[in-house]
């Protein structure tokens, strides 16, 4: 008469355990779902009924009540189809309650009785607790990443019934999920395709090595996007914790995962400049979906045409940039998504796009000033590095030497990240001023250079620390020792971002 099946639903990127209680009693035939179900759950009764009938199982002409406990939490998603179906079968005696006990179920049903995967399987399998979980066979790899005690799979209701009654064996866990090779995936664009752009390539390398956010300014066709797409390749692969977080976010968003299930190379997200606030930071009415900042977790968020993004969208980036997580608060509650990413942005130098030094395009200084003002100073402040790109010479494009391949640069970057890890941070961009003083002492010549820049007003106090951090990264890339040298500071001064980059003006 009564069956209780453990399952889970999603809240943000976390799963919440849910008990599906199915009660079948005499009375007018009917099917009621209580316990704050959303539309997808309420529709599940039709799917469950059709799936059972298609599988050749009887549908009880009795009164069926399904309660989703705890009743106070709103439940969404179609992952409760399978536990409801199993609950109905157990409560009507098709399955013995003892056969079902001690297993959790997650999965969506098709009308033909097939069992389909749902978004967020990673988090759901994690949430059901210390019982074996039965999942759709297509989601085994993903669920296996976090399931705590055993995992079983099935692809149809019929098969499931057979397995539970012992009539047939549980299907073999399809080829043990290959421990995802934590290296780049074949087919990623390689840095050696980029001709010329020596300065920009260096900036890319410094950005990847130090976790410094990068702003690329250049006319259309100067290779901004091409360069940005190659950053994930030179970034070190995420550690297992970050990879799991990233996989969890991608899984919740319903995005395809790599074959092994785990996201082994840094994601690259390039939202269009028309993206809405919710698309960027996450949210939405039905399910709180993660936004682009979270999908870029552990990788690169590339904003092309930065000046065209809505101001509110750009300003919303400031908090995740600062804290590495983004909190989405709604009336129903607050969820946090991970959002630690390398921000790379590209924009044209001026409205006409040609830019370059003053006088070389048709935009008046006033027009350029107005264009530059689209970026608020606090946001511009988040960028450590800025490069002004030029179109590559035809000679370079056709003949020039291919640049260094990604693998070589990635090795230097990995070494710099290793050095950063010895200082207790993931990347040098996170060094606090106090730690900076200890871990990056300046050579006398370098100190006097920074002193001069500070005194002439060319650098602010905050800018000073920024240049210091960049210089530390440059020194790491060059394999220098503890001391940061004059030439590292010189390079940092050239690469650092400043407002005037957008105006093309000489500092005067």
């Amino acid at each position, binding site marked *: 008469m009564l069956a209780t099946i453990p399952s889970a639903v999603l809240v943000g990127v976390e799963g919440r355990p849910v008990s599906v209680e199915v009660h079948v009693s005499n009375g007018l035939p009917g099917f009621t779902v209580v316990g704050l179900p959303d539309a997808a759950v309420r529709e599940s009764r039709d799917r469950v009924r059709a799936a059972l009938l298609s599988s050749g199982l009887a549908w009880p002409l009795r009164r069926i009540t399904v309660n989703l406990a705890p009743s106070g939490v709103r439940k969404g998603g179609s992952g409760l189809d399978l536990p409801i179906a199993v609950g109905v079968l157990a409560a009507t005696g098709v399955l013995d309650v003892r056969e079902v006990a001690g297993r959790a179920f997650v999965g969506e049903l098709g009308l033909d009785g097939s069992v389909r995967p749902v978004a967020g399987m990673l988090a759901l399998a994690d949430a059901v607790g210390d019982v074996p979980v039965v999942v759709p066979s297509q989601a085994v790899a993903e669920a296996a990443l976090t399931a705590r005690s055993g995992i079983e799979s099935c692809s149809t209701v019929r098969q499931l019934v057979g397995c539970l009654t012992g009539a047939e064996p549980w299907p073999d866990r399809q080829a043990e999920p290959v421990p995802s090779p934590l290296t780049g995936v074949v087919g990623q664009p390689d840095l050696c395709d980029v001709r*010329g*752009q*020596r*300065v*920009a390539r*260096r900036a890319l390398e410094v950005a990847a090595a130090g976790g410094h956010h990068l702003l690329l*300014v250049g006319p259309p066709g100067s290779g901004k996007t091409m360069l940005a797409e190659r950053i994930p390749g030179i970034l070190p692969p995420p550690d297992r914790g970050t990879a799991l977080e990233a996989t969890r976010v991608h899984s919740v968003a319903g995005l395809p995962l790599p074959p092994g299930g785990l996201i082994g190379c840094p994601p690259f997200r390039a939202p269009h400049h028309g993206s809405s606030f919710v698309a960027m930071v996450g949210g939405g009415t039905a399910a709180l979906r993660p936004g682009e900042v979270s999908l870029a977790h552990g990788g690169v968020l590339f904003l092309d045409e930065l000046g065209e993004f809505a101001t509110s969208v750009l300003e919303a980036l400031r908090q995740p940039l600062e804290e590495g997580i983004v909190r989405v608060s709604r009336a129903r509650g607050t969820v946090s998504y991970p959002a630690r990413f390398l921000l790379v942005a590209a924009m044209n130098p001026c409205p006409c796009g040609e830019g*370059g*030094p*003053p*006088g*070389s*395009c*048709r*935009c*008046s*200084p*006033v027009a*350029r000033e107005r264009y530059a003002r689209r970026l608020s100073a606090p946001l511009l402040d988040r960028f450590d590095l800025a*490069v*002004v*790109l*030029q179109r590559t*010479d035809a000679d*370079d494009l056709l003949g020039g*030497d291919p640049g260094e391949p990604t693998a070589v640069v990635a090795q230097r970057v990995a070494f710099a990240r290793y050095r950063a890890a010895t200082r207790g941070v993931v990347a040098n961009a996170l060094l606090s001023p106090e730690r900076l003083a200890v871990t990056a002492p300046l050579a006398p010549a370098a100190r006097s*250079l920074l002193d001069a820049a500070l005194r002439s007003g060319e650098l602010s106090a905050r800018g000073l620390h920024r240049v210091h951090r960049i210089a530390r990264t*440059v020194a790491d890339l*060059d394999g220098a020792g503890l001391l940061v040298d*004059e*030439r*590292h500071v*010189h*390079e940092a*001064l*050239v*690469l650092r971002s*400043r407002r*005037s*980059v957008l*105006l*093309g*003006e*000489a*500092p005067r």
Partner: protein
Amino acid sequence: MTAVSHARACAAALAGLEGMTPRRLVALLEQWGPEEAWSLVAAGAHPRDPECRFRAAALGVEVGAVGDRYRCAGVDVLVPEDPAYPAALRGDPGAPAVLFAMGDPEVLADRPAVAVVGTRSATPYGRQVAAELGRDLASAGVVVVSGLALGIDGAAHAGALDAGRRAAPPVGVAATGLDVAYPAVHRQLWNAVAARGAVVSEAPLGAPPRRGRFPARNRIVAGVCDVVVVVECHQRGGSIYTAEAAARRSIPVGVVPGSVRSPASAGTNALLVDGCFPVRDAEDVLVAVSLARRRVDRPDPLPVAGVPVAARVRPPRDDQRRPRGASAPPAPLAPPAPADGTAEAMVLAALDRVPTPIETVAVRTSLRVGELAQALHRLVAAGWADAGDGWWSSRYPLPGQRRPERRPVDG
């Protein structure tokens, strides 16, 4: 500040009427004095205003209040009969019927005047040349006239002010009302020019910047000058209008040549092709000024009497001309050139005088970014190069400096 007479107040009131243009104002005042013209307009009986276009606008205007407003703002109202009205404009076909002035417009009376004009989006080269021209011309006793705009105009004025108190005062010609500093970032410059020389405008107080007023302003710039010098200007820039206005008045137009690759010099180079005379420095301009003044049969302009301009500035020139060869004596203050073979020497050889992107320098020198940055910063510190954002340029060599030759870079 002297009280604004009733006639002047009427002229100012007419100029400030809604819908007034320079040409309509000239028509209204052609045969009538300002007071008479005002009464006729206010009565709707002005024969040159048959549609009574201005009558409604004039109804709400109190002439006395207009006069007070100009007095409080410290702005003089000049009509062509005034002694302070620029003499050069009196016979001009496009002369403004009413001119507003801050400062002392009579500085134009006994001095030669040269307009130094150009584009608002100027290169550092253009700004430097404009500032040098402004400074040297003012030092030579020439009133530097310009439009107070961003870029070349502002640099020329700033240069003229730099020349010191004993130099000739500058004159600015504004396109907006004299209480509307435009561009706003030039408010200080604007005030400094008014304090030392004068700022004039044909726009009434409170007139905002409007598209049509700038070409109109440029004709006044051309009209009050003996010579117009265009420093940098794009293919279809406003300075072309100034040059054309000057040409119509047979006023010589000098042009500073620029790189054929710099869009900011496209207009000026085209003017050179059209036959304007080239200007390398203030001396070239002074020769033209002297010729221009002589041609219109005016006494030699310079306050230091006796020697004609050309004679005063010419002789030393032949010896002190910038060294075209290596034989010039080294100037005492020139910083030492970077030693051959150093990164600095390679970088300096790779720099152009027009802004060069750092990328280009990197390709030309094949240096690593760190070495390149260090060399560039050292060159800037030594005064051999100018720094911008992402681009750099080599300085014009000081007397005695010799640039290293550019050598082809292998690979």
